């Protein structure tokens, strides 16, 4: 029989070191150049509150929750503003149809994959940084860090439906910004027309 642990079975040092690469990756996507500072803030706060962590298995979401708050504080303090985006006008945008429109031979098998292949991790990060934090956060935490929508709702203390709506808009904005980024940076030149 598995007996529930009364507290984390490992110390702060071991848990934090294990989670560091994931926390840094997450912070790089949430606050870009401020990532190291955000993780430093997170480590300090997590250490101060380590006695609040009841179960070692909850460490990833507990640390993520603290990091998300540290990133939000950093984001608010920073002067950098994302590209102006009209959130209301994105409902009809489809990256799939936009790429197909560029193709003189519709239903080409690989054109859409060719488009995605042009984007490296740096480009993905640059596109994410164009989104308002409100919409960037669910995309990063759910799709790139693998948390469930329900877990993110708990971390943020907001209803599930709110996170689902932000995720929906975030996906749309990401698709639109991918297209605009590709146009602006010349990435589309690599896609056969």
């Amino acid at each position: 029989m598995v007996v529930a642990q009364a507290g984390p079975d490992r110390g702060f040092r071991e848990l934090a070191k294990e989670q560091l690469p994931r926390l840094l990756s997450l912070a790089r996507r949430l606050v870009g150049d401020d990532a190291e500072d955000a993780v430093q803030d997170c480590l300090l706060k997590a250490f101060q509150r380590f006695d609040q962590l009841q179960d070692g298995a909850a460490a990833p979401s507990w640390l993520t929750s603290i990091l998300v708050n540290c990133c939000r504080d950093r984001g608010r303090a920073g002067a950098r503003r994302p590209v102006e985006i009209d959130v209301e006008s994105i409902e009809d945008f489809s990256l799939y149809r936009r790429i197909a429109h560029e193709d003189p031979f519709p239903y080409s098998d690989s054109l859409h994959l060719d488009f995605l292949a042009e984007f490296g991790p740096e480009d993905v990060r640059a596109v994410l940084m164009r989104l308002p934090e409100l919409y960037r956060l669910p995309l990063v935490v759910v799709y790139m860090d693998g948390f469930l929508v329900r877990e993110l709702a708990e971390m943020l203390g907001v209803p599930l439906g709110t996170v689902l709506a932000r995720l929906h808009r975030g996906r749309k904005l990401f698709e639109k910004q991918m297209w605009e980024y590709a146009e602006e940076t010349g990435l589309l030149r690599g896609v056969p027309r």
Partner: protein
Amino acid sequence: MISCAKAVQQLWEYLDGTSTQADRVLIEEHLKRCRRCCGELEFAHELRAFLVDAAHEDLPEDVLRRLNRTVEELDP
């Protein structure tokens, strides 16, 4: 059958497994009959996988070293 616009609007929720059972049935019925939406579903699937893959990136070693040092200083 639901419209393409409606089906496309719900594709990601379908992929994420967050749509209701009733919506799942409507989308699956639509996808059986609509080739264009199947293309769009496939692309949404690819884009989702692309985001997951993009999460695996090389991290700057010097930053990781400094952060590891911070952990050791906090909990020696």
